[in-house]
């Protein structure tokens, strides 16, 4: 399955994951209390420079990752134009873009394998409270494997619907999809047990 890691290889791909996550946590914690819009815009520009320093194509990809924020930028613009508090709108919009852009930077420069390894290390102490960290890793692998499988079965169900009904595919299709998921879960559970279980 496709991940959100940027295919454009940058220097930041080789930085250690833990350090990147710590930097994001620190950056996010520091930006929220700032009340001067000039400081926040300055931080946003610095972040943009980091993106640009990692490459032009990488920066363009990063800008596209922020596209989900446009409705909220529009809401802020309309709201604060009406209230005539432009500085506040700039502060809130820049803070939002900075926080999301900073977090995206980690997502874009860290491979899924490295992230999974980090989670497994983080879960290791679960052993001491009687939980099985391997079970969590297996569950994550199952989701990664079964999301495309279920998507495939969903599209088969939708084709079957279209072949039989003049109406468009409706929400009723979720019932057979849930049945497929439940049956697959039973089959996989049996297969796991047959191979010695967890």
């Amino acid at each position: 399955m496709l991940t959100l890691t940027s295919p454009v290889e940058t220097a930041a791909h080789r930085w250690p994951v833990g350090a990147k996550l710590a930097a994001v946590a620190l950056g996010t914690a520091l930006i929220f209390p700032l009340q001067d819009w000039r400081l926040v815009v300055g931080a946003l520009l610095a972040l943009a420079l980091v993106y640009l320093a990692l490459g032009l194509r990488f920066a363009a990809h990063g800008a596209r990752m922020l596209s989900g924020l446009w409705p909220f930028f529009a809401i802020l613009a309309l709201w604060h134009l009406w209230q005539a508090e432009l500085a506040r709108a700039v502060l809130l919009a820049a803070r939002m873009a900075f926080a999301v852009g900073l977090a995206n930077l980690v997502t874009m420069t860290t491979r899924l394998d490295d992230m999974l390894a980090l989670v497994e290390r983080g879960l290791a102490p679960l052993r001491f409270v009687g939980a099985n960290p391997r079970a969590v890793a297996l569950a994550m692998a199952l989701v990664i494997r079964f999301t495309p499988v279920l998507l495939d079965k969903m599209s088969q169900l939708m084709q079957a619907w279209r072949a039989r009904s003049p109406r468009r595919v409706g929400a009723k299709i979720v019932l057979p999809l849930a049945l497929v998921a439940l049956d697959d879960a039973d089959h996989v559970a049996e297969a796991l047990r047959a191979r010695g279980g967890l």
Partner: protein
Amino acid sequence: MERNLTHIALFAALIAVLGLVPKIDLISGVPITAQSLGIMLCGTVLGTRRGLLAVLLFLTLVALGLPLLAGGRGGLGVFVSPTAGYLVGFPLAALVAGFVVERWRVDVGVAAFAGAVLGGIGVMHLCGIIGMSVVLGKTLPEAALLAVPFLAGDLLKTVLAAGITRGLARVRPASVLSRA
């Protein structure tokens, strides 16, 4: 044990699939994401504990960088965006929905509807509105206005969640683990 694990994993995948398929018409002609329907089903079908774990598993994979949220979004950025409150609401919604279905021993469809309304609308929007008010710097009533357009669609999804849960209980009674 194995069965618990695979049910949790497969329902986490179901949440993802419902968010990635945009072509279902909930109201004819208006494509709404069915992702929150998946959250409600996790609670009403799997029950409190497994439903909660399925949603947490789903969110972990989103945080690790898989584009599983509606519209192909994901990564760490979504957890600090204005909609982050809804992501906090996801597991709590499944938990509340599952709790209601497990504890309120009426017809499973009625209990699932009540659970879905309480968890999938009440808890979900409460968390979502708090999140939007923090990130967008608005008061709670102002942020609540932003959530209003989604209420009609969400009410429809609770009806669907109730119908699907009752349907599953009829065709495969053992599979509705919240009542098993």
